[in-house]
């Protein structure tokens, strides 16, 4: 069984982002970029399925500009077999990404597509569900457990009220949540090996999909900041402040 893992390169989650002074967006020049942490979890899940003999091949795909090859190389070093870069300098939005992935699925015929439940830059939380809709496949979002059984996959989903377990017919799309696994660290020899693994670059135009952005960003601004409050010395003072000043208890 082939697994396709879609990954996005985002500003590293340790970086404190800067809003551009002209309010057109967030500064991405000279900022550390990494694989979206949720996609890293998706990749780890795929690699483990391969290690346990269930998956035969793990393909990673990413969409964007050429520099994201570095992130794809890291994905290969983690254990993916080959990588595909769909190259475009058009701003990638979830619906367009889902359409490009649909075209990749048509070429590669995976039985399972894994993606992170959200990307930590735009926090949209859409791409997996959109892809499942376009393919007319079942979707298992926010997965904290994935169990493959013959032609079905059982997914435990993290929902607002607890957990939900569903079963999907294969092929299917699964999006991953934090508690699915802890991604491995990349070992040095694997970085060397990854250089020899195939990384194909395909121009987005070749997939014949309309990816014109349909959402326009008018403005990006800073949120209102909370003022730093005061330090209280002890519980006495805390209770007094909450009662008489804040009036919340």
């Amino acid at each position, binding site marked *: 069984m082939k697994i396709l893992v879609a990954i996005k390169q985002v500003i590293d989650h340790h970086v404190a982002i800067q809003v551009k002074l002209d309010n057109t967006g967030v500064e991405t020049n000279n900022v550390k970029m990494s694989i979206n942490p949720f996609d890293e979890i998706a990749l780890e899940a795929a690699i483990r399925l391969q290690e346990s003999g269930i998956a035969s091949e793990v393909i990673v795909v990413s969409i964007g500009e050429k520099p994201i090859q570095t992130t794809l190389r890291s994905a290969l070093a983690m254990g993916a077999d080959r990588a595909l870069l769909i190259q475009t300098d058009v701003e990638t939005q979830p619906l367009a990404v889902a359409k490009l992935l649909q075209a990749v699925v048509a070429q590669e015929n995976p039985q399972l597509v894994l993606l992170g439940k959200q990307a930590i830059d735009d*926090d949209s939380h859409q791409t997996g569900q959109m892809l499942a809709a376009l393919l007319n496949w079942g979707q298992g979002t926010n997965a904290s457990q994935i169990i493959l059984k013959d032609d079905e996959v059982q997914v435990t989903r993290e929902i607002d009220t607890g957990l939900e377990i569903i079963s999907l017919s294969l092929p299917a799309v699964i999006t991953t949540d934090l508690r699915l696994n802890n991604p491995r660290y990349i070992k040095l020899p694997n970085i060397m090996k990854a250089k020899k693994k195939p990384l194909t670059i395909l121009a987005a135009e070749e997939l014949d999909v309309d990816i014109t952005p349909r959402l326009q960003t008018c403005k990006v601004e800073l949120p209102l900041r909370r003022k730093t409050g*005061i330090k209280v010395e002890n519980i006495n003072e805390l209770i007094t402040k909450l009662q008489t000043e804040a009036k919340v208890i």
Partner: protein
Amino acid sequence: MSVLVIAEHNHQTVNSATLSAITAAKQLGIVNVLVIGYHCEEVALSLAKVEGVEQVLVIDNHIYQHFLAETLADTIVPLTSHYTHILAAASSFGKNIMPRIAALLDVVQVSDVIAIESTDTFKRPIYAGNAIATLCTTDKIKVLTIRETAFEPAMMAKGNLAPIHTIQTTLTEKTNQLSRFIEQQLCDSERPELNNASVVVAGGRGMQTKENFQLLYALADQLGGAVGATRAAVDAGFAPNDQQIGQTGKIIAPRLYIGVGISGAIQHLAGIMDSKVIVAINKDENAPILEVADYSLVADWQEVLPDLLNRLKMGN
């Protein structure tokens, strides 16, 4: 403009997040609410009484006992043609079904809307709330998910009773060959729900054990509140996943938030920034949470929390 709000419920009661979505919908146009469920008359009736609701549509069938995205999307999409906007709350329910609906309609979705600027322009947080984007789209139908904490819940209106229309489903048990419900493990609790509790006591890795979390439950009960946690605390097994607050967990805006043994990573702060009053108890005077707290107490919780609980119990 006509707006369809997809109601979220458990077949008996409406989720408060839907009432916030109705408030957002009222800013856009005429509001219809769609209730899909099984034996869900009560839900339809209570929504018919909500201020600003013009009509309630109900689809009641046993195939809707569980809310599978595939079944719901196939049911909702054919009903959308009269509407300019389709809304749901940005809860795990809305996040699951709305992008599927948007893609089937070939329109974009705007997630987690916190403000409506006009019928085609919306504000939403990006980068864990460290920036606010204003976005617009010319797509024929606007699909939006609404952040509950950004809109007051719509109220029951005295005397309002919107017409309730029942629609027959064209789907059968066999329509959805893609997914099947197996079971739900719900964390039933007597406490208020985290997403709309007026007081939240949250614990982090600094609580050290699951047993220590009991103290937070006792404090929450004393204040009539709910208990939340950081990702680190959930990962460590101190609290269940549905208590995680933050960028990738729940977004809350209580009157009072008390964070204990929580460092204040941006991913956690993303979920609490709209709280009215933030109290932080942390032994490290450099913990980032102290920068956003209204009241901070630099102390070991083991030395102060039992005292706080006792004082509240005694009516201070």
